[in-house]
């Protein structure tokens, strides 16, 4: 799962932090509270997850527990990939 976390972090840095890898954020940091992602950013994140990991993200999945930190994303992906 470390590889997934690395991929997720890189996506966030490239797409929401303008490639600035020196911006510090922990895996448990809330994207919402840190202002890292806005409502259109969530759409970009979902598109990335669906394409990269070949999963389907439903509208009911768009909640902080699933998407709002690297840790939450990893857990969400683990569940989705097990079910698939």
């Amino acid at each position, binding site marked *: 799962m470390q590889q997934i976390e690395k991929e997720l972090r890189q996506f966030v840095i490239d797409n929401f932090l*303008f*490639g*600035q890898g020196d911006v510090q954020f922990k895996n448990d940091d809330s*994207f*919402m509270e840190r*202002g890292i*992602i*806005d*409502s*259109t*950013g*969530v*759409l970009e994140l979902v598109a990335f997850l669906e394409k990269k990991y070949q999963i389907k993200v*439903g*509208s*009911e999945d*768009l*909640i*902080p527990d699933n*998407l*709002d930190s690297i840790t939450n994303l990893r857990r969400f992906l683990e569940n989705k990939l097990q079910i698939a």
Partner: protein
Amino acid sequence: MRLEEVVFQAIELWPNRVAVVHKDRSWTYAELGDHAASRKKRIAEAGFSEGDRALLWMENSAEYIATYLAVLGLGGVVVSLHPQVPASEVSRIIRHVGATGLVVSPSIRQWTAGDFDSTELRFILKEDEMILHDHRGAVMKGPAGLAQIIYTSGSTGQPKGVMLSHQNLIANTRSILAYLCLSPEDSIMAVLPFVYAYGNSVMLTHLFVGGKIVIENSFVYPNLILDRMVEERVTGFSGVASTYAILLNQSNLKAYTFPALRYLTNAGGPMLSELLNQMRSVFSDKRIYLMYGQTEAAARLTYLPPEDLDLKSGSVGRPIPGVSIKIVKEGVEIARPGEVGEVCASGENIMQGYWEDPQATAKVLDGGWLRTGDMGRLDEEGYLTLVGRNNEMIKSGAYRISPVEIEEILLQHPGVQEAGVVGVEDQILGEVICAVVTLKQNRRPTDQELLAHCAQRLASYKRPKSIYLVEELPKSPSGKVLRQGLREISRAALRAPAQAIS
């Protein structure tokens, strides 16, 4: 009567009704009154007095409302800025408006006290922490009766301070209350920033009638908002077109029912008919009000009664009580029904002018009429249809953004030669901001570096979504940058991601 006196009447009439809910806290009207009194005492002790301006750099919160009432209660003027505005811009506005006090939400972290060294602030209040400064010079007083100054972007770049009097705001609020038929039983899910005219109006209408304001500051996960709407049994929801687009596309809206919800409002820009049709399908048993206005009008000018949605399709409605609308052609001639011209408005809600900018004021206020800058036509029954803007403003989400302001920021980068900024159509936001840039020979920043440059200097809603590097900007024979050409470059690049041209 003054604005805060109307609210204090509500506090006396309905002390035990819930006034505001935010996260896990709620305040009754009595508690709101107590918090406002306590804050009033603190800022008075810091030297704030009648006629002074206080800058509220705050997120929507119970504390914002208490501070708003406290400042007005001391005879002061409220100047509010969005939490995402960078400290440098806050400092500029403080100097421009001559604010003597700054109140900051604890959630705002992108500042230090040193950022405001160049101002004449007497105090900075963050939660309970008060930082005092020793500026005791005379404070220039503004026009009598002033309640708020709301900064709004204009086509020339720097935002202008719209001066709104107590009478402007009371007249407009009462007019809105009349057509929305609000009562103490009403409650609103407040997602729009209070610092702008639409959100300000949402806040004031409910405070006037003893209604409940349920605050949610993040629209990143709309399902949370919907859960809260059901839980708090809100009766109303106010948004802009992109709010509803996000709800339809990024939430489980269709799985919800809202038994308590009575009405929804849309303003801050037109709602495309396809979006409106989807909304009407989902909220088939709710009243939907389309509205139009401008910060300079405090802000409401027209509303379309829900029963007229089909009959007057495409219209933004008729003037609200107390407002008159006329269409003016060629700057002078009154247009006949059906003829297109500039929308002009008069009423007790029209602003006092722009702070310290008599020239800009004279361009829009003319003999008691406000020139809105919007083009439209009235039908035989006085219903207004807008047909476009006669300026270059970008409307993205809930915000009106000046492309010139962003171009100036880009030009501050040492590697940028020229910059042109436009809005390009977007299904969710209405428009997204795109920049087209030429670079100097000796410095070749990447688009990512320029995006980071903008991120450090602009509130998030003003940042370009994309920056395209080109050899030359499209120009007319006379050398004027052609915004249509910029749009074409941006649209093409959005369809197929552009590469930087070296």
